[in-house]
């Protein structure tokens, strides 16, 4: 390239949405349906689950039998990307850790997520313990949007009336599998409630929704669904929004910068086509960032101008700060009661059939907030890694006569042991509140750019006692449930030397908080509508605006808040035009 040229689009949009995941997808959907001309820019390729899902493929259709060499969750998982992307590095300050998962594709990470759809509760928005800042909004203000998301996208669950685990408008939940009945019984004995899961899967037809199929129970939501039976932003939001004729998607478009005018207002964005490296700029009245919490923060920090010397919307200096993921730890084993079990199809849904909402009173505990528990196990499709280490369990596996089987070694006895063991596994994983802290953050690395020449993020993140003590409590709870249901633990039991198995920050892929909302422009980046305090036509709709997430998975709240922000944008437009 000898002549550097930026192609300027002549089209002037009402809104540009950066990113097509839960936040961007919902904003695009609402605005396009309201008649606005919307341009959506996605860094990855177009992706339609109806065509591209690897659903119902068999393990042998992958030469590595579903192993995670090129996709962290295995060959059939729907996410294009992972914790490491070629040519798109990030760095970490020494002594700190963070793993940053990015899915580059239409719909982003919603194509492969667990569909676990929990509302944050009144105490998550307005904490009573004083440990973290309150949100500028209450549960009651968000509730109508949660209700609309439930009706529009669909969620199964049971009405339980738990104060901080608000009920939604539920479809019927899938019935528990056999191992889950044992877990529920063990939980009861251990004092841990186990209730029906809450997942965005259409277990029955959703009233008023014609273009989506009903779940046919293959248990593979992680591969995304060809009949749109679960929620992906691609299938449920972006593709329907395109059908209005008001939303245009440009894929393989990596946004470089938010462009602003002399008054500091956003006028559009510049981006690079990741395939041919051609540079573009596009104009719009409103710019909406839904690129993911860290990617949106990076984009704002990289958008410097005389009006915004620290990056657009960053007069507070808080863009990138208060980064927080969920905590995570797990334990696995097997149920001797399930050895030699009868075979039948128990694939069920790909989201959780059961879970344990947080159940304890923190006044009696040595850490704030809490966690929920997700459970696994069952007769799943065998894939790479099956029976890894099973032969070494030796005496832990009882034989048919109840006496230890001993080491099977090899041969017919080993085959018999594998057959006997299949489907007996059981696992549990805690997902808890990690405290949003000023000193856990991402910033622009002053020494490094990615392959597009865009400065990259540098992460500073350390767990503190609150998170470690929570993980300790998780491990005690898991062991107690395992014991009460008569399971044999086979995974490592983590102690203080490994921080009780607490996963590195970022590993749970629930990062948020980097563009927090608030009423005070000095203490927050966005106002309570997700609008930048110092750039009135710039909005953020991913998990960046979260002041503090609960132990609830983020997606349902991202959807509700993005819907709320999009409707605020429509109201503001009406005022101007009205």
């Amino acid at each position, binding site marked *: 390239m000898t002549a550097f040229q930026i192609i300027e689009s002549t089209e002037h949009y009402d809104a540009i949405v950066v990113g097509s995941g839960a936040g961007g997808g919902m904003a695009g959907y609402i605005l396009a349906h309201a008649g606005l001309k919307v341009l959506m820019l996605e860094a990855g390729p177009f992706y339609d689950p109806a*065509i*591209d899902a*690897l659903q*119902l*493929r*068999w*393990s*042998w*259709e992958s*030469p*590595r*039998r*579903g*192993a995670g*060499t*090129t*996709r962290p969750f295995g060959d059939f998982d729907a996410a294009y990307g992972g914790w490491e992307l070629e040519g798109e590095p990030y760095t970490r300050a020494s002594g700190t850790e963070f793993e940053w998962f990015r899915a580059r594709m239409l719909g982003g990470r919603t194509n492969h997520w667990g569909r676990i759809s929990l509302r944050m509760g009144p105490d998550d928005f307005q904490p009573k313990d004083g440990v973290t800042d309150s949100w500028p909004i209450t549960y009651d203000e968000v509730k109508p949007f949660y209700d609309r998301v439930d009706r529009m996208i669909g969620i199964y669950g049971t009405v339980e009336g738990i104060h901080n685990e608000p009920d939604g408008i539920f479809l019927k939940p899938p*019935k*528990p599998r*056999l191992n889950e009945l044992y877990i529920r019984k063990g939980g009861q004995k251990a004092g841990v409630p186990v209730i029906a899961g809450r997942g965005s899967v259409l277990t029955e*037809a959703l009233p008023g929704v*014609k273009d989506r*199929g*009903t779940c*046919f*129970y*293959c*248990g593979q939501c992680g591969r995304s669904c*060809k*009949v749109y*039976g679960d929620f992906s932003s691609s299938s449920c939001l972006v593709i329907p929004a395109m059908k209005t004729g008001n939303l245009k998607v440009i894929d393989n478009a990596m946004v470089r910068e938010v462009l602003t005018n002399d008054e500091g207002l956003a006028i559009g964005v510049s981006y690079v086509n990741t395939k041919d490296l051609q540079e573009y700029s596009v104009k719009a009245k409103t710019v909406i960032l839904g690129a993911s919490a860290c990617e949106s923060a990076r984009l704002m920090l990289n958008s410097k101008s005389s009006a915004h010397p620290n990056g657009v919307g960053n007069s507070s200096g808080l863009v990138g700060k208060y980064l927080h993921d969920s905590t995570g730890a797990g334990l696995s084993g097997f149920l001797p*009661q399930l050895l030699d079990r*009868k*075979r*039948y*199809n*128990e*694939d*069920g*849904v790909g989201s959780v059939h059961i879970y344990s909402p947080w159940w304890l009173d923190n006044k009696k505990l040595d850490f704030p907030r809490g966690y929920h528990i997700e459970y696994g196990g069952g*007769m*799943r*499709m*065998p894939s*790479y*890694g*099956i*029976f*890894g*280490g099973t*032969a070494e369990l030796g005496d832990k596996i009882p034989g048919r006569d109840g006496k230890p089987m001993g*080491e099977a*070694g*090899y*041969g*017919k006895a*080993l*085959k018999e042991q594998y*057959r006997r063991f*299949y489907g007996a596994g059981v696992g549990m994983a805690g997902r808890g509140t990690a405290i949003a802290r000023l000193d856990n953050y991402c910033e622009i690395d002053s020494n490094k750019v990615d392959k597009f020449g865009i400065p990259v993020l540098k992460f500073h993140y350390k767990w503190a006692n609150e998170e470690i003590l929570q993980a300790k409590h998780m491990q005690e709870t898991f062991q107690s449930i395992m014991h009460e249901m008569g399971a044999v633990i086979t995974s490592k039991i983590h102690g203080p030397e490994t921080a009780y198995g607490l996963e590195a920050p970022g590993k749970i892929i629930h990062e948020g908080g980097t563009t927090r909302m608030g009423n005070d422009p000095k203490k927050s980046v966005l106002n309570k509508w997700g609008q930048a305090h110092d750039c009135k036509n710039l909005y953020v709709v991913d998990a960046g605006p979260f002041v503090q997430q609960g132990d609830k998975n983020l997606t349902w709240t991202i959807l509700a808040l993005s819907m709320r922000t999009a409707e605020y944008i429509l109201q503001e437009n009406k005022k101007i035009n009205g």
Partner: protein
Amino acid sequence: MNRRESLKALGLLASGTGLLAASSCGPEKNKATDHSDKPPTEKLPGVQDFEHERNLKLQAEQFFSAHELSTITCLVDYIIPKDEFSGSASEAGVPDFIEFIVKDMPHYQTPMRGGLKWMDIRSQKKMGQVFINCTTDQQIKLLDEIAFPSRSIPEVEQGVSFFKTLRNLTASGFYTSKIGIDDLGYVGNRPGVWSGVPAEVLQAHGFATDEG
């Protein structure tokens, strides 16, 4: 769209693949007849270009020598032999799978190549010939030294470690093949309706039939 319409949209009702009809069959009726469960060479929709190119490139390369592959074939059939329920590891294509996986995950290359060599050296020392040239009795003696970690002697620790790795890879390769999946009796990966644990199973496990 109801479930029937969903399946129609997927092409599973009209196509005659028998997926729906097969959902009520037990593993016995579902025995695979096609044992050539080679991964497809054409790119499946949804597989990224770089992934497909990488697969083709790895498939075109050869890591193990003919002797190494013969030794692997011999060993994996000891680990998973043919029995009255299903075929052997080599019948299920396990040696090909291992050949692919060590190229896909290069951290396996040294432990596998070195482990095979260790086997031959041990065999030469104890039996006066390489492993594949030993008699069945000799081979079993050599395997018994390394297949049971709880009673193995310190001088064969490296062999024990190699055997664990090989056994895990063999299990991965075998039980993800058609033969292996049928052996285990996995009957999912097809459209159906999940209405809970079958009543007789609930009963056998002491749960009330209205539980769930």
